[in-house]
């Protein structure tokens, strides 16, 4: 079966009340292009012929039942799968016109432009300040202490954490609450000014209030960054995502404007999943 690019109905253009068209560059610059992506864990194929375009400065949610490959796909985008020895990847993942799997591509450079937030908050066991300042300093983004202070403050403000931690920047990052830790991780990710932020079920370990805070934050952050998030929670996808891709058994079943997909799913499987019949 040849891989087909899933049909996408574009988001509604508020000016004219009609969906954008493929040619409306204003909102739909491509950020990531994936073609015929296959991935194996040893002999088990986990991703099958994935084709998808991810749009800049939008939130794209990846949904699907456990084990459907959505997190695996997410990790393809910054090559975190390289850390798993048995993984073998084929196909094209293109970010900013460059193949990330090319031999020339340095994964350190890639990860500077494609940041990541993990399922469980994992701040470094260092101070709050150091958590944010570490990566920019490592990448030589700052040279003077004043610059560094400024950047830390900006990142923490963007992550909506500044007011809560400004008086205790030297305390360990692990002393914060779970929701605060996750926002610290987001601050850490945006401190290096990436283009894309990958979020792997960022709220699944958090309480509902912290979850709501993070969701609001994602809504703000998409003005600056392309956000791709994996979620188990369909309501969350409906609330925050501009686009949603439904994964099932390593394939993308449907990919569309979130509103379209949740109101009129094109595939039976999608409908069954979002109406809670399985997953």
């Amino acid at each position: 079966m040849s891989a087909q690019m899933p049909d996408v109905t574009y988001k509604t253009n508020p000016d004219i009340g009609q969906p954008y068209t493929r040619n409306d560059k204003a909102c739909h610059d491509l950020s990531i292009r994936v073609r015929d992506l296959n991935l194996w864990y040893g002999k088990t194929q986990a991703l099958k012929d994935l084709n998808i375009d991810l749009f800049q400065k939008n939130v794209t949610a990846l949904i699907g039942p456990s084990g459907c490959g959505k997190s695996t796909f997410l990790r393809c985008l910054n090559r975190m799968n390289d850390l798993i020895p048995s993984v073998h990847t084929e196909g094209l993942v293109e970010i900013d016109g460059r193949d990330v799997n090319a031999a020339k591509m340095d994964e350190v450079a890639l990860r500077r432009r494609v940041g990541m937030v993990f399922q469980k908050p994992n701040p470094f066991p260092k101070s709050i300040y150091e958590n944010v300042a570490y990566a920019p300093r490592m990448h030589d983004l700052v040279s003077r202490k004043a610059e560094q202070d400024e950047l830390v403050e900006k990142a923490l403000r963007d992550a909506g954490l500044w007011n809560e931690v400004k008086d205790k920047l030297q305390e360990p990052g692990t002393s914060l609450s779970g929701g605060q830790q996750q926002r610290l991780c987001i601050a850490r990710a945006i401190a290096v000014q990436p283009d894309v932020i990958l979020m792997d079920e960022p709220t699944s370990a958090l309480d509902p209030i912290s979850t709501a805070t993070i969701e609001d934050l994602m809504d703000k952050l998409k003005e600056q960054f392309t956000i791709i998030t994996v979620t188990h929670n369909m309501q969350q996808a409906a609330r925050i995502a501009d686009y949603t891709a439904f994964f099932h058994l390593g394939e993308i079943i449907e990919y569309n404007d979130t509103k379209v997909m949740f109101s009129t799913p094109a595939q039976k499987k999608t409908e069954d999943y979002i109406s809670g019949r399985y997953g």
Partner: protein
Amino acid sequence: MNDSFDQISQQLKGRHRKSMRLKYYSMGALALAAAFLLIFFADMLNKGLPAFKQAMINVEINYSEDAAKSGRAAVNRDFSTLISRSVVRTIPLEMRNDPTLLGTTVQRWVLASGEVDQYLKGNRVRLDDEEMERIDRLVETGKIEQQFNVGFFSRGDSKMAELAGIMSAVVGTVMTMIVTLAIAFPIGVMTAIYLEEFAPDNRLTQLIEININNLAAIPSILFGLLGLAIFINFFGVPRSTPLVGGMTLALMTLPVIIISTRTALRSVPESIRHAAFGVGCSRWQVVKDHVLPLAMPGIMTGSIIGLAQAMGETAPLIIVGMVAFIPDVTASFTEAATVMPAQVFTWANEPDHAFVEKTAGGILVLLAVLISLNASAVLLRKKFERRW
């Protein structure tokens, strides 16, 4: 029909009895082990503590012209047999070094002979009744008394029991351990980092891993043979020296450090590595900035324990010639030296009864050092261990 509580309790009686019995067995085992330890310590203290005391005798030393020729002439004939030969022997030397001493008379405390020392400590001696009587009298008048044995901690080995000290062995041990640590720590830690953080999981690394684990179980004397064959015979490293001893012990300590470092690295949560890779760290940056600092307490504890093990080791050092008679404190890494357990071994082989207490005293010093090393390992772990 369901059983009532009483019926169930009835059935449980046997099981409870069994678990009680097992509990008492294990308590008994613990008590036995503790008793052995207690007996050992009591015996060591009983035998070893006298070594920290030494009989001294207060005599008048007359730096006459005769004394410059024979030290014996400097002291009253009555005392000469009670004074350590070492004192008498050094008097002409003293006078040669300081000519102004000639013609003066000094009253001072000097080492009593080993026989006097042993007599005061109530051990069997080869003194006749007359001498014993004289000693008793001198003790009564305060001319002979037991003082704290400073010499035991400040002097090297000697064939005269009253003169033998553990200092040269302590210095030898310190120097040997410096060499061991300088070799085994960096090599061990870097090996562990490579195997744990960089190496692919293939047959070769598995083979290396198995071999390292086996290395830790090899009888230590074989490392001594290896040291003899490779370091001394092949590379020509001078024998009996802290250098060759340290190198040999480093071989023995390496697997301990590698294994404990790997355990420490493995206990660093994977999420920390992911976080570091996620912000674009290179592999080395992940290790250096994030994994190593977290693993450091574990690495240090393992290394200290490995070092303590090496410090108590005698067999491989015998093979590389470190059971030498070292009267003077070793000054360089390429001079002959001895270490504490080897010194204990040497003293244990001395026929003179006075060396029994030296042996036990040496063991006490060695034990004190080892216990404080292990205690510092525990403290380090307590201080730095953090949980996530």
